């Protein structure tokens, strides 16, 4: 832990240590190895160093130093991202923001809170819960992920169907630009500042436009009541049709989740089983919230829809404890795949809800053809699919097969008018798949914007966009891959 003097002759390390302090920099190989990937583990790369600034000023000074000395750098929060956005592809200096984890202020009357980027998502809700308020975006990693990371990825969660994703809850940002300049965009939370919407642009820019050092978020009052319904279907088609019917009947559920048979097998074998029947093809987890008298009617409607769609069994949670169990079972769904497969790869496509049955059939086909099982856990309400491709990395060739199958799933999503990522981001993982949804021109329009903020491309280079040199080759690869599978 405690180091006595810096045991290095690297001038960059020595200079960076002068900014953040000797205890707040890592540069030994054993320490750096822990930073060679984030939640996406297929790519790994060692950073040059990891620094832990304690203030915006320190972040700015580190950035200025990197800019001046042409050192690539990137920001990192808890490192729970699933697309590799925090992996130091170019041997970056990692600016870890976990020491900047203060809750700076809470203003209940004006419904906002100001946090530092390293503040953990769930802690915000926990610290205002006693007053009856909460912070809406609830990614499954909310126990650990930071709000700074949420801003970078524009994180979603199960309840964003009704309440929106991170970008809908960001009121202001303090940002250190790649030049080291500190800018304040509405951190007091005033809406619609004159000028292009930089808040909207920065949110979800995956750490390529600037480093967020202070965040003003909107907080919400708890709903008066909440009801949760669990419905089991013998046919996937019935389940997906029920999803459409619920939405088009005029109900806006807080959450509407679906799991298929393989996924159910996984969650039932893992840490939080709830006793779902193993022979059903699909289950829906539906939550409505709002004014108590209103949701009683909505629940009635939901039950009717389910019955109309041949539900085998449908039940309403009878207690907070039961509701909690259903949600724990769902929220730990990815990790639970460990119980039925040594490895898995999660995808994050989005489709128009109405295409659900067709897309599921095509994913099944991909599964059959690749010989890999694919479990589906998804936010059915907003069409956000998480196909989990199950594989065993120890078998030679399986990683490649899984990657190809994952990519094929995204191709299907793009084909039906959807997109390749709904909440996990592009990062390293889906760079090439960007071409499924964007033309060269559209990608160039985005890199043009990056060049305005990040002209030297020292900040988190190589993420988000396909590498231009490889495009022809990649297209050919993708084409071949498609021919193999279709």
């Amino acid at each position, binding site marked *: *832990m*405690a180091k006595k003097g810096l045991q290095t002759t690297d001038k960059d390390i020595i200079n960076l240590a002068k900014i953040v302090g000797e205890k707040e920099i*890592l540069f*030994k*190989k*054993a*320490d750096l*190895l*822990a*930073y*060679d*990937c*984030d*939640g996406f*583990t297929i790519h790994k790369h060692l950073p040059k160093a*990891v620094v*832990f600034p304690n203030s915006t000023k320190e972040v700015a000074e580190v950035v200025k130093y990197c800019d001046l000395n042409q050192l690539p750098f990137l920001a990192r929060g*808890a*490192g*729970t991202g699933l697309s590799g956005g925090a992996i130091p592809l170019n041997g970056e200096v990692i600016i*870890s923001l*976990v*020491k900047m*984890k203060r809750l700076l202020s809470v203003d209940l009357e004006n419904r906002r809170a100001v946090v530092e980027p*390293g503040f*953990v998502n*769930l802690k915000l809700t926990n610290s205002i819960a006693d007053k009856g308020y909460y912070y809406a975006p609830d990614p499954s*990693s909310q*126990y*650990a*992920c930071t709000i700074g990371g949420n801003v970078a990825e524009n994180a979603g969660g199960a309840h964003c169907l009704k309440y929106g994703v991170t970008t809908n809850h960001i009121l202001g940002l303090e940002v250190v630009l790649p030049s080291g300049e500190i800018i304040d965009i509405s951190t007091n939370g005033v809406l619609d500042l004159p000028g292009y919407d930089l808040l909207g642009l920065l949110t979800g820019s995956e750490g390529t436009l600037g480093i967020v050092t202070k965040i003003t978020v909107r907080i919400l009052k708890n709903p008066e009541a909440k009801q949760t319904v669990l419905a089991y279907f013998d046919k996937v088609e019935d389940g997906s049709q029920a999803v459409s019917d619920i939405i088009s009947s005029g109900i806006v559920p807080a959450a509407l989740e679906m799991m298929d048979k393989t996924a159910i097998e996984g969650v039932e074998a*893992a*840490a939080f089983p709830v006793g779902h029947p193993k022979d059903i093809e699909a289950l829906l987890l539906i939550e409505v919230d709002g004014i108590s008298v209103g949701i009683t009617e909505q629940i009635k409607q939901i039950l009717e829809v389910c019955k109309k769609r041949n539900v085998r069994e449908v039940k309403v949670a009878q207690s907070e404890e039961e509701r909690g169990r259903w949600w724990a079972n769902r929220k*730990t769904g*990815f*990790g*639970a795949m*460990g*119980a039925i497969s*040594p*490895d*898995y790869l999660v995808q994050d496509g989005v489709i128009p809800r109405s295409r659900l049955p067709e897309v599921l059939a095509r994913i099944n086909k991909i599964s059959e053809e690749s010989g890999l099982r694919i479990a589906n856990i998804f936010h059915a309400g907003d069409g956000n699919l998480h196909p989990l491709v199950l594989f065993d990395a120890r078998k030679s060739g399986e990683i490649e097969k899984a990657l190809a199958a994952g990519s094929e799933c995204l191709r299907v999503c793009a084909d039906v008018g959807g997109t390749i990522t709904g909440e996990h981001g592009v990062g390293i993982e889906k760079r090439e798949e960007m071409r499924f949804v964007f033309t060269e021109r559209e990608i160039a329009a985005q890199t043009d914007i990056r060049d305005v903020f990040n002209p030297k491309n020292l900040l988190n280079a190589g993420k988000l966009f396909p590498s231009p040199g490889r495009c022809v080759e990649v297209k050919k690869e993708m084409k071949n891959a498609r021919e193999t599978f279709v």
Partner: protein
Amino acid sequence: MSLRENELKGEPPCHTNSLSNYLWSDPPDEHKWADCVHCGLCLEACPTYEQTGQEQHSPRGRVHLIKSVAEGKLVVDDDFADPVFVCLDCRACTTACPADVDVGGLIEEARGQVRQAMPLKGWKGMTSKFLLEGLFPHQSRLHSLGSLLAFYQKSGLQKVVRKTGLINMMPKHLVEMEAIMPAIGIPVQKKYKEQKVIKAKGETKREVAMLTGCIMDIMFSDINQSTINVLTKNGNDVSIPKNQTCCGALHVHAGDREMGRKLAKQNIEAFKDAEKVITNAAGCGCMLKEYPELFREEPEWHEKAEEFAQKVEDISKYLYDTGYEKPKVELNTRITYHDACHLAHGQGVREQPRDLLINIPGVEMVHMPNADRCCGSAGVYNITNPEMAGAVLESKMKNVPEDVEMISMGNPGCMLQMAVGVEKYGRNQKIVHTVQLLDWAYQKEENERGNNGEKGFAND
């Protein structure tokens, strides 16, 4: 995963990967890290990550490093040893992990490699060697130490040392420890030396054997006494096998797995005839249950250890499961409960001790936020890593409710550490073991019956 079990029953794992830099026997188990998908849900559960914010001091970071050595990316050296030994081994990550990755097991195995690669030197080495090899495994030496400590306290020497400032010559964290040293009583091992079985009061319903523990029986012999009292009160014949020894937890935590195995074998033999092995120290209980981990390369002992582990039970869980007599008189007190890591995370025992406590009439239980957060004791961690232990303790003490009279828990290490906390932060709570409160309630009941309603019980 069933895969792991199958392989365990077959051949011992061997190095298929020639790149591995684990060059000694009993290396970290590949299957344990294969389950980790690096999701990071463990981060916030980890007290050392909370303090440092650094990945290498987080559960998944440590797992990643342990795996990196096996992949040949890293060697077993000081830089690797640092994160592996800064771990409190509190197992909070195991609770948080959706895939049930056994981080604690990996850490202990990795420590075994480190200690084989680099035997301890210097002050740390001496302390560690003295405590782990010279003292804990030897009952007679422990008993002498106990007598010495008792003399130290009773003779007034303690006062002299404190007053004269002699104490200032001790390292700061040892001063803190000294300040809270419990009054030393007679070890139950000594007291019941002549009795083969301590008979149940009234009808015998079950027979149990008790692990007295090494430190427990010296520093906290009254807790062992209370344990015997509540067991016999509830119809258990209690035996205290003579050949039992230290559980080995401290050795295994420190990476001395060889010594751990030696002690494990002795205990497995000592308790061969017992049907139930009762412990009142969470750390010991957890270790006993994990003996099979020590014998991954010795199938014969592995089987014995599995059998033995099945018999081990924490006192609170045992009483809860077999049923116990609920006290009838009131102990009017406000308490809070601290989950010992090796009880909550290690053995999944959370509700049972709370149940025991709230069923004592007049006991008001106040919720402690983050009750299952490590206190920083972690075996001898507070002696080997005082700085980190102090920071973890500070964070723990912030969660202790102001308005309680006692903090109850089920582990002696925690009791010492929490007592340091109470002393250091000017708090006034009494630190008690769960069975002590239950025992006091029974005693008060008996006194009242004996004295015909007259108050005969003193809280302290």
